[in-house]
């Protein structure tokens, strides 16, 4: 039997990478560096999904976010004049909203940390259950998406369709 990969060491390594990446995203002045730090954070997140016995979600995370969306991010950023934006001072003054949001999020974290045991019951899962979860992750996600959450899934796809049509309408001068 394989030794378990989901050790605390990997959890701390991956979440540490995520945290450092996240901090770099908001502190770098150069937008390309921020985007690269975001990619590192997203890859570490894929690793965390793997530790949660969700390999399908991890694979989709890499394909969609790191390989797809972030490439488009970089594509747009490279077209922007970076030298001007580097010298510019930050002009949106939204300290109050920012502090309120950060406080709410921090409160949530502290609550989870102190009362987490009660909110999320510690279900001891046998090795067989975990292995089943890991091996049939793709099928389970598929069954949930096309069964229980069919409506939400289709609504989300409709939302994306609206976004695509909006982009076409805005980009085309004459339709």
């Amino acid at each position, binding site marked *: 039997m394989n030794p378990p990969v989901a050790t605390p060491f990997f959890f701390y390594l991956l979440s540490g990478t995520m945290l450092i990446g996240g901090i770099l995203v908001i502190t770098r002045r150069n937008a*390309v560096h921020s985007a690269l730090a975001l990619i590192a954070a997203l890859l570490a997140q894929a690793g965390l999904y793997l530790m949660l016995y969700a390999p*399908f979600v991890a694979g989709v995370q*890499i394909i969609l976010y*790191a390989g*797809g969306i972030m*490439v*488009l991010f970089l*594509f747009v950023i*490279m077209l922007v004049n970076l030298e001007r934006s580097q010298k510019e001072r930050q002009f949106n003054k939204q300290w109050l909203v920012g502090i309120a949001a950060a406080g709410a999020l921090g409160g949530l974290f502290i609550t989870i940390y102190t009362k987490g045991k009660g909110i999320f019951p510690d279900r001891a899962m046998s090795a067989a259950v975990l292995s089943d979860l890991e091996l049939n992750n*793709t099928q389970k996600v598929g069954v949930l998406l096309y069964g229980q959450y069919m409506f939400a899934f289709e609504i989300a796809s409709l939302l994306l369709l609206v976004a695509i049509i909006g982009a076409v309408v805005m980009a085309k001068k004459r339709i």
Partner: protein
Amino acid sequence: MQPIIDYITSYLSSTQTPGAAGNFFWAFVYILLVFVGLSVAVIAMNWLERKILAHMQVRLGPMRVGPHGLLQPIADAIKLLLKEDIMPAEADGFVFWIAPFIVVLAAFTVFVVVPFGPTHAITDMNIGILFMLGVSSLSVLGIVMAGWASNSHYPLIGALRSSAQMVSYEVAMGLAVVSAILMTSLHGLGLYGAGVAGAGDTGTLSMIGIVQAQQEQGVWFVFKFFPLGLIAFFIFAIAMVAETNRAPFDLPEAESELTAGFHTEYSGFRWSLFFLAEYSAMIAVSSIAVTLWLGGWLRPFPNLLHGATWNLVFNLFPGVTFLFLAAIGFYGTARMPKHPYFKIQTIGLAGFGALLGLIGLVMFIPAVFVRVQDIYWFAIKVAAFMYLYIWYRGTFPRYRFDQLMKVGWKILLPMGLGLLILTAGMGMRSEIWMGVVVPLWHWAASIL
């Protein structure tokens, strides 16, 4: 001595991949083997590409270093390693430095799941094909970083083109792959067999599982639901050339317009990393195509031409191939100029031929050919794709950028979507027949 031999044979007769067995040492050996094999393949590909391209253009190609230029790639590699490593003064140091490593890392990591045989893979993941597509899609990040960090016009344009091209073709490629994955779930024998009751209609994303599904269904997916599998294969075959930035889709490095595209500012070792990554990415996408549509490690016609005699004939193929290569080597030796100046080269070529012949003879030992024939069939199929890459480069002129986008979005993508729907329809055609056509017929009959 005996315990060591027993130890090794116990591994050789294993029915699992080292990853599945959880054996770190054996997995490490496999990783080294794959790495060495891949490097040799890239060197061979470098030589073959120049030679074949030259012969297509009625030239000789490299002839000076070694007999028929056989040592040219090694000479080039040494030259690249000794070259000065230049970093432009205005370049973004860290990003410029790390970009080639990301490209190489992405190109080599995908080989973790490539199934060279039922047990000859480093490991088997239940998301194998997703892993391959995901990790190989990361290589575009390295290309974009290289182009941007060079802080120069041509690399930036090359990087922009590359990112637009890769994101566009990934969509069509993904649709073709999904239709092949769908076929793994449609159990049933033969070209049109589908939806056999009680066959456990779950598909698989595992690379080994996909090949095993083709084995169980008795059909390579390129022929399944003819012509649907064939169309999916063609979409993938076109998209994979675009994904690897090769001619006729080599716009990111179009030398007539962009000097060398995204790696214009790279030199020496860093440039050779891009080169290495490009070729191993070509091998990687070819192995995806071979695994998904061409039956991976399976030999041709396992159902039609079976029985002990045919099995033996197909088992002898690896040895015969090497003997054929050896014969070409000896033919070349006989044709070498008789001048004393060419003496060393003649001896070298004869030695190379003898080495190939020796490998061929080893392949005739039953214990050997039983274990290598799956690797052989996989490699020969990938080699056919590699030849196609060279052939494309020698044949097709480069696309214009708007033509490239048109092919990707207006031709391949709609075809892929239609294909996916048709494949799904073929899988459920008994349900469609019983649930839609027959009730409609009864309804029409009752009205009349």
